[in-house]
């Protein structure tokens, strides 16, 4: 063995290289305070290893970036862990970098003869921040997309060259495939290459001047190997443990696929840029223009850093540097704290909205994952269409925008929010449509008509209270229910009532209410047509006013009467037709009670379809989820107490 190594050394001279690397003297002995540089090298090593493996599965384009990251995160073996390590080691790198920098400044290690090395370090910091920025976009999720847009828009306001720089970086005037290919080339090729080159210089120059010993008389002289290496290794182990714990218990987030057409109100930069984000929100900063706050001020800070070794030549220059650094650090910590407080702990309207937006974003992220894992999978057009075409995602938004000014959905606006007008809860003026068309709904129409339509008393139609038109008329459904409620609720008529409900619900043909009890449906049909009751009788039968063409039959049972036609009641076609124009003859065409506008001209067919499918529960829900929420509210983002700690 020895012979072989001698041979190798003779040919390569490796011993000298290894000796040079390992046997560096440390005046004052190995100390814990010297570990920071090594932990930084270690986090970079983590990034290179996990980054290369992620590279084997990542596909940079607008239709595959999110999708491949989703696949890494949710399907591939240990993908979540590789991505988690990469995600959290990136943040650890920024933290360690700041510690390293502060230590160098406070200890005066930037002063002559180490100025050049200090500047090399600043270059390295710039590269690391560049890596963070470019990496944040690569998953092409809502969070990264909108946060990075801010950064590139800031580039765009750089004086003189902004527009050109922005276009070059983005690969065009807007985000697209080339934004990703360029960011990826920067992130995985150019920047790491530069980092390695400058890190090599940084370490070489460091070795030339030796370690900046804090206190050479601290202990007898030590050696890098093995004294300092053991301490460095333990520190790296602590960093690794932290990164692993964060990966396991928190995990790298993947929000919904980037969608320029869907605003992302929960957008925030990475937490270590929050101070800058918060700084730009000050109105007095904004007054000076975006370039002032976003470019000149950070530029001045960088210039201050670069000038430090020169300032230190003067008497008290070092003290000045340290004092300014401390003040700046305090400002940055303060601004970061302020931003976090405002987002997560303040009760102001904006803060509450932000937290709701974050919860909604988590909801969307979970939903798109559910759809991607569903039987239809991700189409070749990409996952962004999954949420765009999802009734469960779009239905509530359409309901909130178009219906919730009058109707409610289980008391809220469809998206889980209470409808507010001028700071107060606005009263509904039309029926609550949560559970529309269900057996419970039909039963309520038959025996609790007054309650279902009570909100109509909160509005007027052409000067008359709508509730009076709807609820106080003896000759319509309200009057009929008033007259027959007790009869229907008699225990003897239980079966007749249930039959009537079953028959009416069966007319919808809805699959979410199937199977229908055929015997009960037949019984109900008899009640509907002939008013057959076990006890008591109807003064007028359903069919006397309501016509219906029973599902599956060619001929209508009767003739259009004075009340809405119940053919296909509460089914897809019926609901579409009703929303399109409730005033047609088959719906509320008779009488003057209809107060609902026709949506046929204002609601696009696509939105109508999504709204109706949502109301009819016609969308994919994973088996696991549906067993979970069988009897709970189907859609509500705020009901779930999903809040994320910053």
């Amino acid at each position, binding site marked *: 063995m020895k012979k072989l190594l001698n041979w190798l050394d003779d040919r390569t001279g490796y011993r000298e290289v290894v000796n040079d690397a390992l046997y560096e003297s440390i005046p004052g002995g190995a100390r814990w305070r010297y570990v920071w540089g090594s932990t930084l090298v270690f986090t970079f090593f983590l990034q290179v290893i996990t980054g290369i*493996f992620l590279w*084997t599965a990542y596909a940079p384009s607008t239709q595959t970036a999110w999708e491949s990251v989703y696949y890494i995160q949710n399907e591939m073996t240990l993908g979540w862990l590789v991505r988690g390590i990469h995600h959290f080691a990136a943040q650890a790198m920024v933290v360690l970098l700041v510690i390293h920098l502060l230590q160098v400044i406070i200890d005066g290690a930037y002063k002559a003869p180490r100025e050049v090395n200090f500047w090399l370090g600043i270059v390295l910091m710039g590269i690391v921040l560049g890596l963070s920025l470019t990496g944040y976009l690569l998953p092409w999720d809502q969070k990264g997309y909108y946060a990075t847009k801010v950064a590139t828009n800031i580039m765009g306001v750089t004086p003189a060259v902004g527009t050109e720089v922005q276009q070059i970086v983005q690969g065009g005037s807007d985000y697209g495939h080339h934004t990703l290919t360029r960011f990826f080339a920067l992130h995985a090729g150019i920047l790491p290459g530069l980092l390695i080159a400058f890190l090599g210089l940084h370490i070489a120059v460091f070795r030339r001047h030796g370690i900046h010993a804090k206190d050479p008389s601290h202990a007898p002289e030590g050696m890098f190997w093995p004294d300092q290496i*053991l301490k460095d290794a333990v520190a790296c182990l602590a960093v690794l443990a932290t990164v692993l714990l964060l990966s396991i218990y928190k995990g790298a987030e993947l929000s919904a696929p980037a969608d320029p057409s869907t605003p992302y109100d929960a957008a925030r930069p990475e937490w270590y840029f929050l101070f800058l984000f918060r700084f730009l929100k000050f109105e007095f900063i904004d007054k000076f223009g975006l370039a002032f706050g976003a470019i000149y001020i950070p530029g001045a800070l960088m210039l201050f850093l670069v000038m430090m070794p020169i300032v230190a030549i003067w008497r008290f220059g070092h003290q000045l540097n340290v004092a300014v650094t401390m003040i700046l650090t305090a400002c940055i910590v303060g601004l970061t704290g302020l931003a976090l407080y405002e987002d997560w702990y303040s009760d102001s309207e904006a803060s509450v909205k932000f937290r709701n937006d974050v919860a909604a974003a988590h909801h969307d992220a979970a939903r798109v994952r559910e759809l991607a894992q569903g039987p239809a999978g991700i*189409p070749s057009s990409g996952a962004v269409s999954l949420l765009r075409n999802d009734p469960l995602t779009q239905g509530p938004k359409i309901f909130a925008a178009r219906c919730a000014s009058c109707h409610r959905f289980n008391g809220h606006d469809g998206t889980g929010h209470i409808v507010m007008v001028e700071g107060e809860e606005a009263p509904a003026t039309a029926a609550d449509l949560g559970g529309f068309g269900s057996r419970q709904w039909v039963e309520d129409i038959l025996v609790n008509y007054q309650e279902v339509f009570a909100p109509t008393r909160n509005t007027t139609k052409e000067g008359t209270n709508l509730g009076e038109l709807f609820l106080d008329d003896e000759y319509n459904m309200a009057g009929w229910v008033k007259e027959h409620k007790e009869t229907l609720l008699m225990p003897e008529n239980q079966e007749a009532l249930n039959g009537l409900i079953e028959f009416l619900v069966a007319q919808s043909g809805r699959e979410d209410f199937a199977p229908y009890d055929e015997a009960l449906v037949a019984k109900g049909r008899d009640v509907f047509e002939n008013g057959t009751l076990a006890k008591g009788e109807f003064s007028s039968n359903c069919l006397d006013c309501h016509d219906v063409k029973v599902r599956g039959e060619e001929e209508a049972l009767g003739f259009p009467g004075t009340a809405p036609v119940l053919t296909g009641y509460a089914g897809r076609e019926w609901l579409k037709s009703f929303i399109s124009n409730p005033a047609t003859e088959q719906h509320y065409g008779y009488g003057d009670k209809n107060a609902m506008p026709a949506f046929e001209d204002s609601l696009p067919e696509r939105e109508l379809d999504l709204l109706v499918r949502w109301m009819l529960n016609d969308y994919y829900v994973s088996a696991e989820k549906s067993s979970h929420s069988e009897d709970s509210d189907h859609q509500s983002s705020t009901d779930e107490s999903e809040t994320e700690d910053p």
Partner: protein
Amino acid sequence: MNEQPQNKPAEEGVSRRNFMTKFWSVVIGGIVSLTPVVVGLTFFLDPILRKRKVAGGESAGSPGEGFLKVSSEAALPADGTPVFQQIRKNVIDAWNTYIDQPVGSVYLRKTEEGGVSAFNSECPHLGCTVSYVDSSKQYKCPCHDSKFELDGERTNEIPPRPMDELDVKVDESGDIWVKFQSYKIGVSEQIPKN
């Protein structure tokens, strides 16, 4: 260059402490360096560690067990000449699900017994698509001249096995259903892929 510590005359305690320092440096250094490498390599071995999802690609009215409707009896010549037929089904490629994609092809023909036979058109030698040569009534591979009879048997020793015959069903309405399957190329046994 500094003097190397092991060259210094050292007391036993110092040297032992020095050894323990080196020992733990190597152990901990090894742990922190190898952890990301092992995690990453496991991730990289995903193709052999994880069973992939297969798309349900059966057409409506399928007799089950993965049969696909590919043609109808009426489309096959009565004289037993094979017909080249593309196979389409749903495909999962990593994160994407593609609906009704071409995944391969088969040769369908009426057999002398009046049934229908189906052969995967993939040559078992090295995976090229064989062609049917009408003049010799044989299948011939354009790559390395593998040749097969109409019943799939080899006529030379180039391919390691006969052509892969597939299960076929003909329903009452004359539709032909094939259970499409690919097999490992280049070996004498039939080993199903997936």
